[in-house]
C-alpha cells in the first residue's frame, strides 16, 4: 500500500494526534456529552486509519500492528468484564453494579464506574475497528502480490 | 415369578454383557450363549406349570436401596411391567425357547469361522429375551418397545459387507421400523379411546372407523413381522443374504411366532372383527399364499425360494386366524408352530448345503443326496411337510384350516359366502408349494452331480443334529396331531372345539390326490417345455455339462404363459413391492423439492418474505 501525496502526509502529521485527542475527549466526556465509548473509540480508530491511509504500509508494520491491536482489544474487553465482575466482590455483590460513588452530576469525575466503562469500551472499539481495517488492508496487500 | 426373570432378563443381560467381550473368544461366547439358552428353555418349560394369571413384575428394585434414584426409576418402570401368562403366551414362549436352543446348537458350528457377523451370540440372546418379553408382556407400550428392538436385532444379524446384503438389511429394518411406527398410531388410538395400555383389559368392537384404523395399524405391525402380503417383501431378500441360521432363527421361526402371536392377540382377544375386516384378512391371506408361491416357483436361489415360502405359509395362518372361529384360530396357531418347525429345518438344511458347497444357486448344485444323507432326509421330510403331505404336520394344520373354512362357510356374511374361493385357493397354494419343493429337493439333492461337488461331506453333528430333531418333530407333530399336539397345546388356547370331519378319509384322499396330481402336472408342463429345447441325443456322444437340464428350467414354462409372464415381468420390476413403490415415490418427491433449492440466495429470500406475507394474510383473515 502506497502512501498519498505529500500534502496529505504533512497535514496528517498535524491532524492525527489532534484527532486522537478528540477521541479521548469524546470518551472521557461520555457521561457528560453525547458520544461515549463507542463513538470515541471509533474516532481513535479513525486517527490510526488516517495514518495508515496517508503513509501507507511502508512506514507502518501492518501485520505487527494488527496483532497488537487485537491483543489490546481482547484485554480491553476483558477489563470491561472484570469491571463488571468486580461488582460481585465489592459492595452489594450484584453483577454490573455501579459500585463507585456517583459524585456530582456534571463533573468530569462522577458517575461511578461509567467513565471507566467508557474508557474500556473506547479502547476496545478503537482497537476492534482498527483491526478490521488492518485485516482488510493486509488482505489487500496479499492479494496484490 | 422367577421364571419370567430367567426367560426375559437372563438372556438380555447375558447378551449385553457378552457384547462387551472381544470377538476373538467367539466360541466361548457361543458356549455361554448355549448354556443360557438352555436355561431359558428349561424355564419356559417350567412356565407351563404356572396357572394363567396376570402379574406385576418387580424389576430389580430390590437391588437398590429404598428411595435412591435408581430405585425410584425402577419403581416407576414396574408400573409398566405387567406380564400376562396365559396359555397362548406360554405356548409361544415355549416355542421360542425351543427354537432358540435348536438354532444355537446349529450356530455353534455354522457361525464359528466362516461367517463374519459381529456379536452374533449377544444379539442372538438379546433377541431371545426380547421375543419372550414381547410375548409375555401385557402392556402395549412395553410390547411396542420389545417389538421394536427385535427389528433392530434382525438388522444386526445380517452381514453387510456387500451391496446385496446391505440393501437387504436396509430394506428389512425400514419395513419393520415403518410397521412399528404405524403400530404406535394404533396404540395411540386405543389409548385415546380406552385410556389404557393393558392388553388384557381391552375388548374393542370395530364399529367406529377410528377403531378400525387402530386395528389396521396393529394388523400392519403383525403382518410385517410375520411377513404377510403386502408387507412381505423383506423376507426373500433377507433370507437370501443372511446366514442360514439367522434366517432360520428370525424370519422363519421367531418372527413368525411373534407376528402370528400378535395377530392372534388382536384378532381374538383385543378386537372383535366385523365382517369386512374378516373379508379383508381372508383376502390378504389368500393373496399371500398365491403370490408368494408363484414367486417361489421361478426362483434360482434356494434361500430366496425358501424365503418366498416363508411368506406363502403365512397366508394359511392369516387365513386361519382371520376366520375367527375356534377351529380357524387353532389351525392358524398350529400351522404357525408347524411352519416354524419345518421352515427352520429347511433353512438349516440349506445352511448346511451352503456351508459345504458355498453355492447359492439351484442350477449350480445337484446330486448331494449321497454325500449328505442326514441333511437330505431331514430336508425331504420338511419339504413334504410344508407341501402338506400327510401324515406330516403341515398336512395336519392345513387340514384344520380347510375344515375351518368349510365350517366358516356355513355362517351368513360376505366373507362366508366366498368360502369356496378361499378354500380353493388355499389348496392351490398347497399344490404349488409342493411343485416348488420338488424343484428344491431335485435341484440340490437329486439329479446329476457336478464335478466340483465331488468330495462333499456331511456336516458336523452339531449341524445335522438340530436338523434331524426338527425333522423328527415334524413327523411327530403330524402323527400325533389329533391325539396329543392339538388337544394339549392348541386347545387350551382356543378352547374346546370339534373337528367337523375328523380324519375323513375320502375328503382327505381326494384332496391329497388333487394336490399331488396338480403338482405333478405342473412339473410335467415344465419338463415338456424342457424336452423340446433339449438337443437330440446321438449315440456315443459324451454327455456334457451344458446339455444337462437345470432344475431352474422346471417352471420356465409358467413364465411363458401370457398372463403369467406379464405379472412376472411386473413383479421383477418390483411393482408389487410396497417398499420399492414407496421408495420411488419418495425419491421422486425429494428430487422435485431439491430442484427447488437452486442455491441462489435471491430465491431463498423470496421464500422467506413470501412466508412472512402469507402468515400476515392468513392471520389477518383468520382474526
Amino acid at each position, binding site marked *: 500500500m502506497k502512501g498519498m501525496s505529500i500534502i496529505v502526509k504533512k497535514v496528517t502529521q498535524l491532524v492525527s494526534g489532534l484527532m486522537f485527542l478528540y477521541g479521548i475527549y469524546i470518551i472521557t466526556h461520555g457521561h457528560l456529552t453525547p458520544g461515549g465509548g463507542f463513538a470515541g473509540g471509533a474516532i481513535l480508530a479513525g486517527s490510526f486509519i488516517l495514518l495508515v491511509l496517508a503513509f501507507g504500509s511502508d512506514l507502518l508494520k501492518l501485520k505487527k500492528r494488527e496483532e497488537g491491536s487485537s491483543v489490546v482489544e481482547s484485554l480491553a474487553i476483558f477489563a470491561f468484564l472484570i469491571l463488571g465482575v468486580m461488582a460481585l466482590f465489592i459492595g452489594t455483590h450484584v453483577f454490573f453494579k455501579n459500585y463507585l460513588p456517583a459524585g456530582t452530576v456534571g463533573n468530569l469525575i462522577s458517575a461511578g464506574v461509567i467513565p471507566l466503562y467508557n474508557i474500556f469500551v473506547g479502547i476496545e472499539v478503537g482497537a476492534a475497528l482498527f483491526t478490521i481495517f488492518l485485516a482488510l488492508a493486509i488482505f489487500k496487500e496479499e492479494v496484490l502480490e | 415369578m422367577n421364571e419370567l426373570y430367567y426367560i426375559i432378563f437372563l438372556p438380555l443381560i447375558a447378551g449385553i454383557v457378552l457384547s462387551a467381550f472381544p470377538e476373538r473368544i467367539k466360541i466361548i461366547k457361543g458356549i455361554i450363549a448355549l448354556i443360557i439358552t438352555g436355561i431359558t428353555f428349561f424355564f419356559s418349560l417350567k412356565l407351563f406349570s404356572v396357572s394363567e394369571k396376570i402379574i406385576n413384575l418387580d424389576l430389580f428394585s430390590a437391588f437398590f436401596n429404598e428411595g435412591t434414584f435408581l430405585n425410584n426409576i425402577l419403581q416407576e418402570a414396574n408400573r409398566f411391567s405387567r406380564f400376562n401368562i396365559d396359555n397362548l403366551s406360554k405356548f409361544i414362549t415355549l416355542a421360542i425357547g425351543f427354537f432358540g436352543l435348536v438354532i444355537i446348537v446349529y450356530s455353534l458350528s455354522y457361525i464359528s469361522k466362516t461367517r463374519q457377523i459381529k456379536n452374533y451370540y449377544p444379539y442372538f440372546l438379546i433377541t431371545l429375551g426380547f421375543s419372550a418379553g414381547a410375548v409375555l408382556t401385557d402392556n402395549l407400550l412395553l410390547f411396542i418397545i420389545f417389538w421394536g428392538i427385535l427389528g433392530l436385532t434382525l438388522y444386526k444379524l445380517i452381514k453387510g459387507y456387500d451391496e446385496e446384503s446391505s440393501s437387504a438389511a436396509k430394506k428389512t429394518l425400514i419395513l419393520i421400523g*415403518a410397521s412399528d411406527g404405524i403400530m404406535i398410531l394404533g396404540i395411540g388410538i386405543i389409548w385415546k379411546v380406552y385410556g389404557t395400555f393393558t392388553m388384557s383389559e381391552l375388548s374393542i368392537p370395530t364399529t367406529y372407523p377410528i377403531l378400525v384404523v387402530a386395528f389396521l395399524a396393529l394388523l400392519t405391525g403383525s403382518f410385517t413381522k410375520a411377513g404377510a402380503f403386502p408387507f412381505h417383501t423383506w423376507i426373500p431378500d433377507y433370507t437370501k443374504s443372511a446366514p442360514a441360521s439367522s434366517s432360520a432363527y428370525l424370519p422363519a421361526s421367531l418372527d413368525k411366532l411373534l407376528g402370528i402371536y400378535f395377530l392372534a392377540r388382536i384378532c381374538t382377544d383385543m378386537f372383535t372383527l366385523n365382517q369386512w375386516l374378516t373379508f379383508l384378512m381372508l383376502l390378504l391371506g389368500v393373496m399371500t399364499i398365491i403370490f408368494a408361491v408363484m414367486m417361489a416357483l421361478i426362483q434360482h436361489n434356494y434361500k430366496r425360494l425358501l424365503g418366498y415360502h416363508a411368506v406363502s405359509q403365512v397366508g394359511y395362518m392369516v387365513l386361519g386366524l382371520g376366520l375367527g372361529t375356534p377351529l380357524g384360530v387353532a389351525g392358524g396357531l398350529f400351522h404357525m408352530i408347524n411352519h416354524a418347525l419345518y421352515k427352520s429345518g429347511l433353512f438349516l438344511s440349506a445352511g448346511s448345503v451352503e456351508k459345504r458347497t458355498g453355492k447359492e444357486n439351484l442350477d449350480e448344485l445337484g446330486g448331494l443326496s449321497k454325500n449328505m444323507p442326514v441333511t437330505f432326509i431331514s430336508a425331504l421330510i420338511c419339504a413334504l411337510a410344508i407341501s402338506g403331505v400327510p401324515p406330516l404336520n403341515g398336512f395336519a394344520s392345513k387340514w384344520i384350516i380347510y375344515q375351518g373354512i368349510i365350517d366358516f362357510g356355513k355362517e351368513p356374511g360376505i366373507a362366508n359366502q366366498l368360502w369356496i374361493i378361499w378354500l380353493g385357493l388355499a389348496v392351490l397354494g398347497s399344490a404349488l408349494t409342493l411343485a416348488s419343493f420338488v424343484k428344491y429337493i431335485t435341484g440340490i439333492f437329486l439329479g446329476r452331480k457336478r464335478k466340483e461337488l465331488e468330495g462333499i461331506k456331511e456336516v458336523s453333528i452339531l449341524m445335522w443334529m438340530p436338523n434331524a430333531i426338527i425333522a423328527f418333530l415334524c413327523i411327530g407333530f403330524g402323527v400325533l396331531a389329533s391325539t396329543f399336539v392339538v388337544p394339549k397345546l392348541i386347545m387350551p388356547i382356543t378352547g374346546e372345539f370339534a373337528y367337523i370331519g375328523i380324519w375323513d378319509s375320502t375328503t382327505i384322499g381326494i384332496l391329497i390326490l388333487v394336490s399331488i396330481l396338480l403338482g405333478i402336472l405342473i412339473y410335467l408342463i415344465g419338463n415338456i417345455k424342457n424336452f423340446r429345447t433339449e438337443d437330440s441325443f446321438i449315440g456315443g456322444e459324451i454327455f456334457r455339462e451344458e446339455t444337462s437340464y437345470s432344475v431352474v428350467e422346471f417352471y420356465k414354462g409358467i413364465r411363458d404363459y401370457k398372463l403369467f409372464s406379464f405379472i412376472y415381468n411386473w413383479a421383477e420390476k418390483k411393482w408389487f413391492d410396497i417398499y420399492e413403490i414407496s421408495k420411488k415415490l419418495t425419491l421422486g418427491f425429494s428430487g422435485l423439492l431439491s430442484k427447488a433449492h437452486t442455491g441462489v440466495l435471491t430465491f431463498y429470500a423470496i421464500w*422467506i418474505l413470501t412466508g412472512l406475507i402469507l402468515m400476515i394474510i392468513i392471520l389477518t383473515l383468520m382474526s
Partner: protein
Amino acid sequence: MSTLVTLFVILPLATAFLIPVIGRVINGFQRTITALIFLFLSILSVYILINVNPHIYTYKIGGWEPVNGIPIAIYFVLDGLSTFMLVVINLIGAFAALYSIPYIKRFTAENNYYALLCLMVGGMNGVVLTGDLFNLYVFLEIAVIASYALVAFGVEREELEASFKYQILGGIASILILFGIGMLYWNTKSLNIADVSDILKNTENNKAYLVFTQVFLITGFGLKAALFPFHAWLPDAHSSAPAPVSTMLSGVLIKVVGIYSITRLFFNMFEISVEVSTIIIVLGVISMVFGVFLAVGQWDIKRLLAYHSNSQMGYVIIGLGMGMLILANNGSKPVAALSIFGGLFHLINHAVFKGLLFLNAGAIEFKTGTRNLKEMGGLSESMPLTYSTSLGASLAISGIPPFNGFFSKLIIILAAIKGHFYLLAFLAVLVSIITLASFMKFQKFSFFNKANLSPGRKINEVPFFMCFSMVALAILCLGLSLLIFPGVREIIIDPAVDVLMNTGSYFSAIME
C-alpha cells in the same frame, strides 16, 4: 446461587477474551481451558437442575429494584425451562469442545476457533438466562455472529458461500426481530418480558397490531430455527461447518435462538391464541415433512443430517404448538402438558443424537476426506466405534427403541392422537419412517457395502478425544430414555413444562 447464575455468562465470555491473548503465548491453553470451562458449566447446570427447587429465580443485574412496580433492570430469570436449556447447551458444548481437540488441529487459527466457540456458548447461555427482550436480541446476535464465523472456519469455497447465505438470511431475521421488539416497545413501553406480558394482557390491543408483531417475531425466530419456508440457509451452513460446529449449530443453536425464543415469547409473553398456535403447528408440520423428503435424496452426509435437523425441529415445534393450541382452546391440561413434554423431550434428544451424528460424520470426514456417500463404504471394519455410535444415533433419530428418540416421538404421537390431531400423528409416523429410510441409507453406504475408497488408504479409528465424545453422547442417547419415567422427568423436564403450562406464573414470579 446468585453468583452461580452469572457464571454461565461470565466464564465462557472471559475465556473467549483471554484466549487470543494467552493462547498466543501458551500453546494448548485454548484447548484445555475451553474444554474445562464447558465441563465445569455442564456440571454446574446439572447441579442446578437437580438441586434447585422448581420455583422461578430472578436476579436483577445492577441491583436496580423496580420503581413503582415497573422493573427497570435487566433480569436474569432462572426457571425450569432456562435450566433445562442450560443443561442442553453446556453438555453438548462440552462434548463438542472435547471433540474439537484433535479435530481442529488440522486447521490454522486454533485460538480463534476456541474463542468463537466460547462466545457462541456464552451468547446462548445469555439468551436462555435473560428476561429482557432487547437483551435477548443482543445475546442472540453474539451467538449467531460467532456461528457465522464458525461456519466459514475452513475458508474454502463452500464454507464461505454457506456462511454468506447464512449471514444474509440471518441478518434479515435479526432485523425482523428488532422490528418486532420495536413494535412491542411502542405499544407497551417496556422491555421486560414479564412486564410486557402484563401490559399486553391488561390492555385492549388492536388485532392488526398483534398480527403484525407476532408475524415478524415468528418469522425472525423461525428463521433462526430454520422452520420450513425459512430454512434454506440451514443445509448449507450445517453441512459446511467443521463437525463440532455443526454439532453445536444443529444440536443447540437453532434450538436456543429459535425454539426457545419462540416458546418463551409466545407462551409467556403474548397471550396464547388459537391463530398463532395454528400457524406454528403448520410451520412445524411443513418443515417436518419437507425436511425429511429433502433429506432422503441427499448424498452428502452432512447435508442429509442437516435436512434432518430441519425435520426434527418440526417435531419439537409440533409438540410445543399442540400444547399451545390445546391451552388456547382451554382443552385438557394433561394432554397439553404431555404434548409440551414431548416437544421438550424431543428437543434434548435431538440435541444429543443429532450432535452425535454430526460428530460421526466429522469422524468419517476426518479419516476418509470425503462427505459423499457414494465414495465410501465398508467403514464398519475400520472404524468400529464410529460405526456403533452412529448406528445408535441413527436408530435414535428414526425412533427405534430402546433409544431416546423413540420415546419422545411416541409421546408426541400419543399426545397428537389424544388431542385429536390425527393427521399430525399420521404425518409424524410417516416422517419417522422416511427418517429411518434415509438413515438406513446413510448406514448402508457409509459403513456397510463394499469398501469404495482407494486401496492405498489406511483407515483406522479416530483419536481418543473424538471417540470419547462420541461414546459419551451415545451413552446419553440410551440414557435419556430414562426421562420417560416420571421419577426422572419430574426433576428434569417437568419444571420446564410447568413454566410453559402456567403461562401466568412467569409474570407473577418475576414481578413479585
